[in-house]
C-alpha cells in the first residue's frame, strides 16, 4: 500500500518552505540541498528516545570504571572521541560517539527496590497512594505531541520488560497519554512481526475499499450520535477512533516495516530485539513520534538476561554490552546522518546502579548511592563526564544529581518547562518536576 498522506504532508510543508525561501530571497539551490534532509526529518520537532535498562546496570563496568582499584573488576578502560572521557572496552562503538554524549557519574538516591526506584527515575517523584504520577513518556507526549499526529505520541518497545516491578504508567494524565506498546516478545533476529502493533492490520480478507467504506459508515454513525448527544465521553470516543483510523489508514506510515531498511543498516543495529527496537525508534522519531522507549533485556545466549547481575556480573555485562553498543552507537550515527540528532535526545538509564564492591558470587548488588546515566543528542553539551563517584565509587564526591534533577535536565534539553503544572482528577496542581528542582545547567548547551 503506497502511503499517500505521508508524502502529501511533506509536499505541503516543502511548498511552504519554498514560498518562505522565495520571500526572504534565499537561493533555490540552497533549498534543494535541504530537500534530502527535509524528506527524512519531517520536521524540526524535538523528540526523546529512552533506552531503559531494567534491573539496574553496573556503572563500574560501563561508564564509570575504576581501573587499578579492587572494586574495578577485569574490564579495561578505553579512550573515546572526547578527550579525557574513558569508558568500558566493551563499548567501542559508543566511544566514537562520545562528543555528542554526556555521562553523569553522580546520580544518587536512597531507593534500592527495583519497582520503587524505577518509579522515581521514570516519574521524578517518590510514589504515593494519593497521586498516580505520570511517567516521563506520558509527560513528554503531552508537551511535545500533536493531536493530529498519525502515529501515537508515545510508543513503548518491549515494554513488558520495562517495569521490573514498576507500577508507574500514564498516571493521572489518563489513557490518552498511555504508551502504544509494541510487544517484541521474540528475540528472533529476522522477525519483524514481533515488533508490531497488535490489531493494526485489518483481517486479510478485508480490502482497501471495504476499509474506506467502513470508516465512511462509521463517520456517518458518529456524526448522527454527536448530533443527538454531547459531552466529554462522546468527544473522547470520537477522538480515539479518529486516532486509530489515522493509524490504520496510514498503516503507521510504514514505521514498522523494518524490511524497508537496507540489510546492512539492520545488521549494524544488531539482529536482536533491542537492536531492531532502536532502529524502529529511529523510524518512529523520523515520522514525528516525540517519545519512544526501548528496553534492553536478553542477550543472544540468554533471552532472560538482565542488568540485575547479582551473580556472574562480568560475563553478563559483557554480553549485554555487546547488544547495547552496536545498537546505541548505530542509532547515534544514524540520527546524525539524517539530521535528526540535533532534535533528538537519547537517554540511557536504569533504576539504579550496582555495588562497586564485588560479592562472593562474582556479582554486584543494588546500589542507589552513586551511579551513572548518559544523555546524548538534542540540547546536550556532549563530550563530558559530569560529577564523580570518587576513587572507589562508593559515594558521590562531586556534583550529586538526583532523579528529579535528571528529569528536569531532560525537560531542559527538550525545551519543556519543568515547572509546568498538570492537574490531577481532584484538581490538584502537580508540576512536571517537584518544586525547587532545577536542570543541571552544565549538561545543557548554552
Amino acid at each position, binding site marked *: 500500500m503506497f502511503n499517500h498522506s505521508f508524502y502529501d504532508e511533506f509536499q505541503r510543508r516543502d511548498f511552504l518552505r519554498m514560498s518562505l525561501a522565495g520571500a526572504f530571497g534565499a537561493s533555490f539551490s540552497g533549498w534543494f540541498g535541504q530537500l534530502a534532509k527535509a524528506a527524512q526529518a519531517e520536521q524540526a520537532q524535538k523528540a526523546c528516545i529512552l533506552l531503559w535498562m531494567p534491573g539496574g546496570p553496573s556503572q563500574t563496568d560501563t561508564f564509570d570504571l575504576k581501573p587499578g582499584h579492587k572494586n574495578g573488576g577485569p574490564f579495561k578502560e578505553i579512550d573515546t572521541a572526547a578527550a579525557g572521557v574513558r569508558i568500558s572496552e566493551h563499548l567501542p562503538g559508543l566511544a566514537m560517539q562520545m562528543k555528542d554524549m554526556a555521562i553523569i557519574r553522580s546520580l544518587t538516591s536512597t531507593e534500592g527496590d527495583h519497582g520503587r526506584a524505577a518509579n522515581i527515575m521514570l516519574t521524578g517523584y517518590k510514589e*504515593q*497512594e*494519593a497521586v498516580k504520577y505520570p511517567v516521563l513518556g506520558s509527560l513528554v507526549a503531552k508537551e511535545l505531541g500533536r493531536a493530529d499526529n498519525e502515529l*501515537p505520541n508515545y510508543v513503548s518497545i518491549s515494554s513488558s520488560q520495562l517495569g521490573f516491578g514498576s*507500577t508507574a504508567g500514564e498516571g493521572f494524565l*489518563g*489513557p*490518552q497519554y*498511555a504508551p*502504544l*506498546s509494541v510487544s517484541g516478545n521474540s528475540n528472533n533476529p529476522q522477525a519483524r512481526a514481533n515488533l508490531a*502493533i*497488535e*490489531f*493494526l*492490520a*485489518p*483481517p486479510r*480478507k*478485508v480490502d482497501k475499499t*471495504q476499509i474506506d*467504506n*467502513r470508516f*465512511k*459508515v*462509521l463517520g*456517518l*454513525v*458518529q456524526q*448522527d*450520535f*454527536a*448530533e*443527538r*448527544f*454531547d*459531552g*466529554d*465521553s*462522546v468527544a*473522547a*470516543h*470520537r477522538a*480515539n*477512533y479518529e*486516532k*486509530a483510523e489515522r*493509524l*490504520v489508514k496510514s498503516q503507521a506510515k510504514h514505521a514498522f516495516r523494518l524490511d524497508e531498511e537496507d540489510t546492512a543498516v539492520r545488521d549494524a543495529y544488531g539482529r536482536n530485539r533491542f537492536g531492531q527496537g532502536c532502529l524502529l525508534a529511529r523510524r518512529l522519531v523520523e515520522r514525528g513520534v516525540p517519545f519512544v522507549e526501548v528496553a534492553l533485556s536478553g542477550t543472544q545466549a540468554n533471552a532472560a538476561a538482565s542488568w540485575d547481575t547479582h551473580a556472574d556480573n562480568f560475563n553478563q555485562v559483557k554480553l549485554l554490552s555487546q547488544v547495547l553498543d552496536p545498537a546505541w552507537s548505530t542509532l547515534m550515527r544514524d540520527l546524525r546522518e539524517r539530521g535528526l540528532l540535533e532534535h533528538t535526545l537519547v537517554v540511557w538509564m536504569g533504576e539504579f546502579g550496582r555495588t562497586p564492591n564485588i560479592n562472593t558470587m562474582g556479582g554486584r548488588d543494588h546500589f542507589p548511592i552513586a551511579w551513572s546515566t548518559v544523555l546524548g543528542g538534542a540540547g546536550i553539551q556532549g563530550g563530558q563526564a559530569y560529577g564523580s563517584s570518587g576513587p572507589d565509587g562508593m559515594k558521590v564526591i562531586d556534583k550529586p544529581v538526583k532523579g528529579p534533577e535528571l528529569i528536569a535536565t531532560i525537560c531542559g534539553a527538550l525545551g519543556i518547562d519543568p515547572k509546568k503544572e498538570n492537574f490531577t482528577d481532584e484538581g490538584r496542581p502537580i508540576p512536571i518536576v517537584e518544586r525547587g528542582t532545577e536542570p543541571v545547567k552544565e549538561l545543557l548547551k548554552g
Partner: protein
Amino acid sequence: MEVPHVGLLLTIISLGFNGIGSADEPSPTADRQQELAAWLDARFESRWKANQLTPPAIVDDATFLRRVYLDLNGTIPSVSQTFDFLSGNQTDKREKMVDQLLSDPRTPKNLGRVWRRMMVPGNGPEAAAATQLLEPWLVEQFTANTRYNDLARKVLVIAPDAAPMQPIGLNAPAAPTPSASAYINAVGRTPDAVSGASTRFFLGVSLNCAKCHDHPFAKWKQQDFWGMAAFFSNQGTAGRINSEKGESYPAVFLGGEPATIPEGKLATEVLVDWMTSPKNTNFGATAVNRVWQHLYGRGAVSEIDDLDRVPPEERLFFLDELGQRFAAADYDMRWLIASLCKSRTYQRETPGKSNPTQSDQLTQRPLKTLQPEQVFDSLEQALNLPIGKSDDSPRTNGTRTQMVAKLSEAATNHPDQFRSGIPQALMLMHGSMISNATDIETSRTLRAVIEAPFLEPKQKIETLYMAALTRKPREQELNTMLSFIGEQREPLQRKQAYSEIFWALLNSPEFVLSP
C-alpha cells in the same frame, strides 16, 4: 424467519428461572417498591419545577429495555427478547421486566462484578486477585440478597486466627477459595491499607492523605487516619496501633469518638457495629450513592468517595434520606434496586444537546460507558455467538479473558467518562471477534440477515440496528444506509455493504455509550 430464533437459547435459559414464585398477587414487596419510587420521583420533579426546568421525557420501550438489561443483566437484550418486549402490551411490562431480570442469575453475576470493581478499583494484581476470589463471593451475596450491613460485617470482621491473611500473587497457596477475606487481602492486608480502603468504600471518606500528613483540603488529621486503622491492628494490643513514624494511636471512630473494645469482642466488630448503625448516615448514604451511580451514571452528589467535601445542601436533595430509608428497610439491596429501576426518574431520557436540564448536574443522566465485561457480553449477544465450551466459544476459549483484560487497561469507575485508548479501538476494529462477526461467510447474524430472501433492504438494516443497538434506525439513518447500499453496483458488494454497516454499528459510540 431466522431472526426471532437469534435469542432462543437465552430465552429458554431465562424462562427456566422465571416460572417460580412470580405469581401476580399484589405483594407488600411491590407496594414498598412503589412507595420508594414515588418518593424519589417527587424529589426530582419538585427540584426541576423549582428550577423551572422541564423534566426529560420518559424513554421508549427499546431504550428502557437496553438500559435495564445492561444495568442488571450486564448485557444487551437479544433481538427476539427485544421483539417480545416491544410487542407486549401490558401496562406494567417494565415493572415485570425489572422483576424478571432481578431473578435472572446473570444479574447477581453482573452486580458482583460491578461491586468488585468499586471495592478494588484499578487494573493491578490486586484487581486480578479480587476478580478471582472476591467476585464469586460477592455474586453469592447478591444471589442471596445478603443485607448490606451483613455484607460489610462479613468483609471487615476478621478473626485473626480463623482467617489468616492470604498472600496474593506469586506466592499464593494453591486454589484459595472465594471468601469475604479476599477483600482485605486485595486492598493491602496491612491495618492502614484495609482501613483506608474500607473507609473509602463503606463510608465515602478518603483518609489516605492523612496517613502521612494532615489532609491539605479536608479536616482530617493523622489522628483520624490512625484512629481508624487501629481497629484493624494486629500488633498485639487490640485497638491500638503504631504509625509509620512510631507514634501510638488508640482506636477512635471517624469524627472523634473514642472506642471501647469490650472483653471478648473483636475491635473490627465494634467498628462495624458503629459503622452500620442507622445513626451513621454515611454508611447508608454511601451504599445508595454507589447503587445510584451504577444505575444513573453519576452519584447522587458531586463526590462519591469524598462525602465530607460535599456541600450539605447537595446531600439534602435526596442522598441522605434515601440512605436512611435504605437503613430503615434493613439494608435490603434487592428492594432498593428494584424500586429505583421502577421509578420514573430512572426511566427518563438522557438529555440531548442543549436540553436545559443539562444545567442541573445532580438531576442529569449522562451517557453511561459500558464496562469491559459488558462490552464483551453485549458483543456476544449482538453477534449471536455460541456460549458453550464444546463450541469453542469466545466465552470459553480465552477470547473473553483477553478482551476484558485489554479493555480493563483503560477502564474507569466513572460511568460518565470514556477513557479507552488506541489499542482498545484497534481490538474492536480488527480483533478476531469482530472480524469473524463481520465476515459474511462465517457470521451467524450477518448471514441470517443478508441471505434472508423475504427481507427487504430496509428490514435488513433494521435487523442489524436491532441486534447492535436495540432499536430501529430513525428515518434519516435508514435513508443514509439505504443510499450507501444503493451506491454498490455488484451483488457481492451489496452484500458486503451490510457487513460494513454492521461493523460500523458495533464500533459506534452508541454501542459503548449507553443513553
